[in-house]
């Protein structure tokens, strides 16, 4: 009897924190943008917004797997740099090259991810250090390959995924190909997620990032079993595969600005700094770096929050805010249970 009363009384109290604050933040930010810039609330404005954040969203999907296993990946940005530069130089404005360059770049992503995964899982090098080394190495490779100069050109066939919109549709009016890519990726990741969307939780204890408890069990990307280093390795590999894929789409200057991916070759290092901004914070926000939990729905909120937060002032006519602070906010949001 007494127990029943207690449990009934406790329930409403528990309910409130169950709403992840990221949701509230996203709604508030989007409303704020719409108030300041009504065009954003229209379907075309929102579709363009999704188009621009699609690359970031996909990238953060890869980052999530790494962060969930207690690691961090600094080399995402330089993977993008290398693949964008490589694509541009190899393509050299030849429309027919797209078909072999995209698989090649995905392959480069896989190789980089495999090396990172092996170094972290088997050589036991902390992920920050291992991927920092990879980041510097890849930048060096990109620099040597290109001579530090913008070269080559991306043909329109290559940029199709990032740039083109299906026009004249009812209700949404335009549907960018990038958004289709985003939805497909989201669906794949969702499907690959552990049954029931259960998060990959790490056990407590600050030293125990290998001591992951359940999850991702028996999925091909590797689970969180701390006794099986191959699991983490799998997560790095996935992270890089996605980063590589993303880099490909991006290189098309693809998705308009897709997280600087579309930088084509004018800047010799497109993708620079993407290891911190913008891919990690959404992933981090989702995974919760200190004993947190992560699902792709968390991640989606994370990236939408971040994108909205950084975009709002631009849409309103102001200069971009200090992005680092927004990222910090996203990360801290993710840590709120």
């Amino acid at each position, binding site marked *: 009897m007494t127990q029943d009363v207690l449990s009934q009384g406790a329930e409403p109290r528990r309910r409130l924190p169950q709403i992840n604050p990221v949701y509230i933040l996203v709604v508030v930010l989007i409303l704020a943008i719409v108030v300041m810039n009504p065009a954003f609330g229209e379907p075309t404005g929102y579709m363009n917004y999704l188009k621009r954040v699609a690359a970031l969203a996909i990238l953060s999907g890869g980052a999530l797997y790494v962060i969930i296993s207690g690691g961090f990946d600094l080399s995402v940005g330089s993977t993008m740099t290398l693949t964008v530069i490589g694509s541009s130089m190899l393509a050299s404005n030849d429309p027919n090259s797209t078909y072999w360059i995209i698989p090649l770049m995905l392959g480069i992503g896989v190789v980089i991810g495999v090396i990172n995964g092996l170094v972290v899982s088997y050589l036991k090098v902390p992920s920050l250090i291992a991927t920092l080394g990879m980041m510097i190495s890849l930048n060096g490779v990109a620099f040597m390959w290109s001579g530090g100069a*913008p070269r080559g050109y991306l043909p329109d066939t290559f940029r199709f995924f990032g*740039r083109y919109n299906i026009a004249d549709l009812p209700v949404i009016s335009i549907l960018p190909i990038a958004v289709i890519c985003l939805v497909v990726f989201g669906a794949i990741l969702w499907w690959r997620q552990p049954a029931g969307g259960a998060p990959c939780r790490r056990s407590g204890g600050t030293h125990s990032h290998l001591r992951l408890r359940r999850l991702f069990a028996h999925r091909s990307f590797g689970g969180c079993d701390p006794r099986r280093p191959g699991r983490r390795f799998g997560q790095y590999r996935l992270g890089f595969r996605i980063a590589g894929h993303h880099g490909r789409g991006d290189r098309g200057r693809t998705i*308009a*600005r*897709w997280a600087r991916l579309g930088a084509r070759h004018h800047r010799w290092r497109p993708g620079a700094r993407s290891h911190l901004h913008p891919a990690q914070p959404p992933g981090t926000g989702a995974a919760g770096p200190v004993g947190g939990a992560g699902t792709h729905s968390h991640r989606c909120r994370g990236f939408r929050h971040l994108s909205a937060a950084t975009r709002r002032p631009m849409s309103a006519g102001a200069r971009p805010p200090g992005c680092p602070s927004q990222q910090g906010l996203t990360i801290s949001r993710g840590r709120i249970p």
Partner: protein
Amino acid sequence: MKKTILAAAVLGMLTGASFAQAPNFDDPAEFAKQREQLTGAFNGPADKPYLQYAGEAMVDTSGFKKDAPWTVCFSNAGVNNPWRVVGYTDMTEEVKLHPEIGTFTHADAEGSDDKQIADIDDLLAGGNCDVLIVSPNSTAALTPAVEKACASGLPVIVFDRGVTTNCPVTFVHPVGGYGFGIQAADHVIANVASGGKVLMLRISPGVDVLETRASGARNMFKEAGLTILGEEFTGGDNAKTKSIVEDYLQRGAIDAVWMDAGATAVAAVEAFEDQGFDVPVVTGEDQQDYLQKWRDVGFKGVAPTYPTYQWRTAIIAAVNTLKGEQVPGPEWVLPQPVITQDVLDQYINEKMPPLHYAMCGCEDMPNYPQAWGGSQ
């Protein structure tokens, strides 16, 4: 008391620093001079614009005469944009035309002031250079390094971007940044009604030839009664350029985009296309991708140029200096043509790469077009 002295000292240093290196990027006299030069006459062969020069002033270089072979040293701000890639190819091909140049030493500063200052120090310390060519990364930061090089007794040739010292033998440059800004702004003003809205896109701050492009154009827009929607720095990044234009488009119409350099002009054009707007006036430069986009889409374009043939001229100036021959100076002002609709087709060459700059003055060189990535 100590605090007062300290505060006074800090204040003094700050004030001193602000006056010590404060290049004037908005000089009406220079603006007027360049406007005149744009249409003025040039000396030298008309079919070789890289040898032409404005005015009659020459510098005596007999003191620098030296027997060949020479070591020509070049401190380069970077090859980090397509314009510089084309220019550097012009330069290396020009070096091949001069058998007296025994060694050509190139130091690439990769767009860093600090590295370029160190590069110049290294080149001077090496003691092998017979002449030093400098293309400064930024104006104020590189002035002391150039002064130091002059003080070492080496003949110094500065080209492209400038420094605030007259110590070099000559400073090779086209008419200048004001001229570029004028050419683009004239076109905008002629095609946009008074009260129209102009978005100004710039690469980066602090470089004299870019600052003056903007200040000249800004003054002209204000005088013509145009509204400047904003001035944004793109960092030469296509993706950033496109998103900036998209953001402005969401807030309202844009009647013209004025650009201080054309490398990202196609990205600006695509922002209009992808949002379903007609492309308004978008200024650019002589880069092939822009010229072709302009022709294909048919918007009201214009391509002021900052010709890459000046990279050839820098070598020619160095060679003439070491021969002890007179060179135009203290400024060697080259012609700075503008590509308009009437002459657009002359400058489009589908066989050259999209990032090639048409005004290279390189068509008469032995390795053209292969060395620039073109096909026969």
